[in-house]
């Protein structure tokens, strides 16, 4: 498990979207979820927020209700 300092170092080193994505997966052991507000472009800001808050992006409950994005 990475501590805060290691996480910050990893964030500072990150340059590509893939670097942030890998860090997200390392921390939360799950892929970046697609939600009804972040589909389209890779949700980089949500990913950085999630890493800084140490709280994964909330899964969109709408997906269980058979919606199309």
């Amino acid at each position, binding site marked *: 498990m990475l501590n805060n300092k290691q996480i*910050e170092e990893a*964030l*500072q080193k*990150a*340059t*590509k*979207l*893939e*670097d*942030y994505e890998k860090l997200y997966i390392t921390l939360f052991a799950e*892929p970046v*979820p*697609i939600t*009804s*507000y*972040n*589909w*389209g*472009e*890779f949700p*980089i*800001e*949500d990913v*950085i*927020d999630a890493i*800084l808050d140490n709280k994964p992006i909330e899964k969109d409950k*709408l*997906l269980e*209700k*058979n*919606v*199309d*994005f």
Partner: protein
Amino acid sequence: MSRILEKLADQHEERLLNVLYNLENDVVKEVTRATKGQLVSQRLAIQLQPQIRKAIQDNFLNEADLIINEEYNKIAKEVLDSFGELKIPKKFKSLTEVDLQTINALKFQTFSGFEDIAERFLKVINDEVYQSAIAGRPFEDMVSNIRSHINGVYKQSNSREINELVDFINENKFDNAKKAQVEEAIRKLHTQYASDRAGNNLRRYAGQIAHDSVMQFHGQFTVAKAKEAGIDKFTYTGTLVRDSREFCQRMLNKVLTEEQIREIWNTQGWAGKSTGDPFIVRGGYRCRHTWIPTIDETVDEIPEQPEEPTINANSIDIKSVVDASPIANLKGKSQKEIKDLYNDKLTSLLTPLTTQVINKTEKPNVITNEIPKKKNQRQKAYYRPSEKRLVSHLEEQTLAHEYGHHIDWSIADKKENILSRNIIGREKAWSEQNVTFQQALILDKNNLNLTEEKIIAVRKELYNYETEKVKKRKYTYTYERYVEKEKNVGTSAISDILDAMTKGQVFSKYKMAGHGRSYYIERDGSDLRETFANLFALQNNKEAMKKVNKYFPNLQKAFLQGMKEYVEQ
């Protein structure tokens, strides 16, 4: 199209259509012999497969082979004759060793087209027999279905009048003097005996491929010879018939360079356009026009596409279902103003056809927006079919995308969905039910050949790679991302169709726009539904449509065909 080519195309079509009756008889004879006219068992269904393959081989493929080997040299001669009239060195007017190799390669390629169709129908017939075994379908029904798969409404029937009509059509199909009577007989066959109709059948495809193979062989050999002689100007030649495509009418007798011709194919779309090289596919399936090499003529300008009639704000009215109360970022605007904004936005994204589709379809129960929970969070956009609830903001073409989902779900066949609910536990949208649309997705995907190199090449075409910074708390973070080269040209929707084709790889691996792997893998049919919604949203974006026609010509064709059929129902 020269008279010789026209005659050859018609003769080949006639020959192939005639052998389909032998094929129909042989297949039915084999099935009857094996089952003795009783219900077919699963074991027998499997045992019958080699016999059915042999029947297709002996009838359909054998005739195709004879036609290609006996007749295609005449097409090559026709090409050489057209070169004979040009002021070019003599060496380019005769048949060379290389030409012979080209002709043989083209013959081989042509035959493989017939083989593809044969394989497809072998599977259809085998599936029919096997499914009949599983479902316990009566023998007579199974035979009737097999006959329909081969000859459609022209299948051999017990009804005397049907047989008479079919015989009359077959005997006089190529006789110009009896054209009107033949058309009347076809109309009668289709309208009065429509219940016999089995949609796509071998006859339809066989007739088409027999015709198109002649034209395509001619096109390929012509362009090969023209390149050899250094000719790069061509005239679009042929005659117009009653149902000639608007495109062919516009292009007829135009002299264009190869570069201009390729530009047209890359940027323009038209009803009936098919994928492939412009010199080979020309106007599309069953097109009777050819590109003939030209030397002395002056090059014309590229003919402009006719302007689509514009849609005004009164063409549609969704205001009654817009719930403006929770709309974000439009504070200060009255309910009426917000309703107008939604109505105007959707109108701006429609074509006459999509307007007609919307006006023919029940509106969603509600169109609204949901205020994001977090500050700086993007606004939501989704469609929930069970409640007919459409949530969208007004950015780009998202409102039309979500409305596209509403249309896709609303125009689906309800009877078919009773079955779907029982079999797969959920209903299907139109895009999932429509076989042509499904096949178009596969066809365009295969034609695009989305290897890693290809995806990266497309990404380069659509996106720039840029470094961006974002400040969070006390630090600044840097990241490189793909940014659309041009705004408002439908890049994200086009990228999303590619994402659907690759089951989310384009988004998840190549970081282009889309819905991503988990969405496409976990949500059955979402590739078709999202593709439909994206196409619906892009129809009135000229720049985007150039790319749609370049990357997804079959999907666009299937979309237009489906929507036209829906409107005309």
